[in-house]
């Protein structure tokens, strides 16, 4: 084996050796080398001493109940009334958000189209009078088409996940 200090890989290899992270074969090879190489022996000895010294610095168990109680109190203080109100519907929003948003958008567009003719004189805008009759059907039709597309997509890609937000 070539000396790890001479090849410049001393730190990584000898640290792994002292941390006992090497596989059994590498461990045995390095141990044999350390037996005949004073530089590596000194490095490994020093590193092992550091490792054992750090081992002695054991931390105490944390008072979990007290820690958690304080943490949850802080979390509760941060949760706004809006969050509390939205909490029950949040999972639904995450899963169904896109279709709901799309449907809501269509309803708003339909509403705008329905409102517009009322503010425009009939004589000046005959086309809008036509829209007045057709728009709700268009909106309904569009919603039906969206549903059909979604069904179609499910049939074509049965394994595909639900669309994410």
């Amino acid at each position: 084996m070539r000396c790890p200090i001479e090849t410049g890989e001393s730190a990584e290899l000898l640290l792994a050796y002292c941390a006992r992270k090497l596989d059994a074969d590498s461990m045995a090879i390095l141990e044999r080398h350390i037996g005949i190489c004073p530089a590596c022996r000194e490095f490994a000895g020093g590193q092992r001493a550091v490792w054992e010294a750090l081992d002695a610095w054991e931390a105490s168990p944390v008072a979990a109940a007290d820690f958690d109680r304080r943490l949850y109190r802080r979390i509760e203080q941060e949760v706004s009334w809006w969050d509390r109100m939205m909490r029950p519907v949040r999972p639904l929003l995450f899963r169904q958000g896109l279709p709901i948003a799309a449907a809501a958008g269509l309803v708003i567009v339909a509403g705008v189209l329905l409102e517009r003719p009322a503010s425009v004189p009939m004589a000046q805008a005959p086309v809008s009078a036509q829209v007045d009759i057709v728009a709700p059907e268009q909106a309904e039709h569009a919603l039906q088409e969206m549903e059909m597309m979604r069904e179609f997509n499910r049939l074509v890609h049965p394994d595909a996940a639900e669309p994410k937000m």
Partner: protein
Amino acid sequence: MAERVKTDVGSVIAALDCDAELMLRVKEGDGASFGVLLDKHRSSVVHFLYRMVQNAPVAEELAQEVFLRVYRSRSTYQPTAKFTTWLFRIATHLALNSLRDGKNERLQERLDDDSSGMPVRQISDSRPSVEQYMVFQARLDEVRRAVATLPEKQRAAVLMHKYEEMEYSQIAKVLSCSESAVKSLLFRAYETLRARLAHMA
């Protein structure tokens, strides 16, 4: 395309890392999963922060802030890395800020005062003599001082390497640097510690 790749990587990491999976459940409003994560990582985060700042009340306060930030970030969480990488990145960031802000200025005072509020490993003899206890405390004090003298990033790298048993690649992600930079940090840190602690062998 890039977004899709990112999502795919995220789903793979979530599948491999059960902590990431739990965090995704927290994202969907499952509070119990947050409790599981807290239970699993509370001690390691507090201990890491304690060894970083060497002040028990400050460490607990910082750990509270870590988990509070985890909870606050639940809605924007993406499993782009291991959960523990993200967790320790937050913890390290807070510890380094605390040290730089001087919130931990009583550190030296506490080191001189000793005991530090965190009990240590008991000597194996069930009834150690006063002399044994004092020798053990003196050695422990020496270890704590040696770690405290390390530059902050070297200290963080050593603590993650030694106590959290993190790989170089994970430490690199936590510290936002390259793997070779981590190796260099660890080499220099252990060199300093060997010079100060090798006589303990």
